[in-house]
């Protein structure tokens, strides 16, 4: 395994530049920077541009964050405003912050 291979592959599905999408992206970026610095990739997919991608990841709510890697796939829907829920959802232990 390559060392620079990101440990976390995250996909954020949005539909246009809405306030909710912007909030979600900002929140996600913040958590990643805090807990997963250097280990993550975020791919933002705008379904208004590529609607055909919605079916593959079974997207019905917007915004939806999908953790593609590591397996198993996890989904978090909403603007990701609840930090704890997002971390639990992504299976990231906020060790650094709480201890």
């Amino acid at each position: 395994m390559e060392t620079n291979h990101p440990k976390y592959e995250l996909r954020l599905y949005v539909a246009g530049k809405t306030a909710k999408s912007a909030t979600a992206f900002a929140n996600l970026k913040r958590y990643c920077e805090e807990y997963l610095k250097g280990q993550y990739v975020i791919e933002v997919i705008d379904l208004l541009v590529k609607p055909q991608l919605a079916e593959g990841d079974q997207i019905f709510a917007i915004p939806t964050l999908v953790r593609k890697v590591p397996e198993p796939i996890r989904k978090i829907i909403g603007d990701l405003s609840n930090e704890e829920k997002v971390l639990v959802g992504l299976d990231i232990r906020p060790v650094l912050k709480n201890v």
Partner: protein
Amino acid sequence: MTKEIKKEKKQAALKQLAKTPTGISGLDELTAGGIPAGRPTLICGEAGCGKTLFAIEFIVRGALEFNEPGVFVAFEEKADELTSNVASLGFDLDDLQKKKLLKIDYVHIDRSEIEETGEYDLDGLFIRIGHAIDSIGAKRIVLDTVENLFAGLSNQAILRAELRRLFQWLKNKGVTAVITGERGEGPGLTRQGLEEYVSDCVILLDHRVSEQISTRRLRVIKYRGSMHGTNEYPFMIDEDGISVLPVTALKLNKDASTERVPSGIPPLDRMLGGRGFYKGSSILVSGTAGTGKTSIASCFASETCKQGGRCLYFAFEESPKQIVRNMTSIDMDLQKFVDNGLLKFHASRPSLYGLEQHLVAMHKMIKQFKPRVVIFDPITNLITVGSVRDVKSMLTRLIDFLLDEQITVMFTALSLNTIVNEQTDEGVSSLVDTWIMVRDIEFNGERNRGLYIMKSRGMSHSNQVREFIITDKGIDLVDVYLGPQGVLTGSAREAQRLQELTNAVLHKNTLTMKDRELDRKRKVLQSKIAGLQSEFESAEEELNKMYTEEELVKKVSEENRLELLKRRSGE
């Protein structure tokens, strides 16, 4: 002028709600054209009542019959599951997908792999549906079952708002939507109260079991802006999908034919004004057990086939083979009609399914086979699956339908009691046009059959009781003997006939004897007359002789006197 007409036409068109035919047999008649076009329709009902099938049939028929592509958004079943589930109905979903007439979109919602945090909306679903619609130019869409969203997502407030937006959005898209919803415990039609979002058309499917027999029913609860049938209509799911039975012809405006159809028993025809039943009329043959009802019915069937008409025979008691075999004993060959396709038997036990289901099945078969004559043998058995009232209502609808189609129908009914005036025969006697009754006449230690015509609308008919005889040559009717001892039938009638024959011979004999005596007397008298005649002749002769002598004497004495006179004068 033309402009005004156009305007009027336009207004008329506006007044009428545009409808999308579902292609489901019977439903479009019921709703006068289908479900509202471009609007959502809610199909609700309990589990297993046929919602998904309804939805898929709507899509498939739309694609095949009306060339309207459709999207099926499945929240419950995966596309391949769905495909194999409906393959038994002859729907090839894969093929339709290839032809771009159908798109199945499976929306998988699993609560265990979803975490919710903060605000969200269902734009993802909108985009997916929108993409699916646009990709094939869909005119129809099904959401089956959208309530599954409630199981997967916890924020009800968002869901409800989003659903309302979804239905509005579908309306704006102009697609005709069918939304299925499962009926829950509560008083509402659906668990999540979808009916409050879908307000244009709501159809309730129901699956009821009464006395161990299930009947599916459909009811249009609401149809904004359109007339619709409000009753519960039975429907059936079989190898051709759903069929709803819309018959309750409330109007009694059927055509009345004056054409006659022979019954196959010539003496019976003679009793019915000489020409048989009216075409498109209904005939009830009732009687106690073993009076030959089936024989009469078979006779009618056979006669119809002989004339080249089709006959559909619903047998509820015997199997077709049994009937064919039994009828050969009275010299009737039904098998040849079965073979050439004119006669079709449909045998089923009444308890196979509910009354309504029977009705739907019959309806369908009649529509397919297009018979000239339909026979139900016997309707009495239907009572085992419904109350008298139910049976009557079912038969009313059946008769209405048959008369509408100008099909002559014959029912047989078993009367359980022999008292005529108590006889209701499932109360259908008032519905039928001709009521023939076969009764046992017990007399002189034997049982014979008497046939009456209780009524026959619109034709002069015999009021006489005829004896109904079934022999190995067939069916015959003979006049019963009405004598001083009452009605005589069977061997008593035969004895009476022989007695009469004997009397006639004796009588004839007496007459001859009397004739001869008279002859003799005449001869005696004649000889006497001859004797007297000769006596008279001899007497006459005697008299004549004396007279001649006297004449001669007179003549001679005159001559003598003249001679004497001459001599005295001295010449």
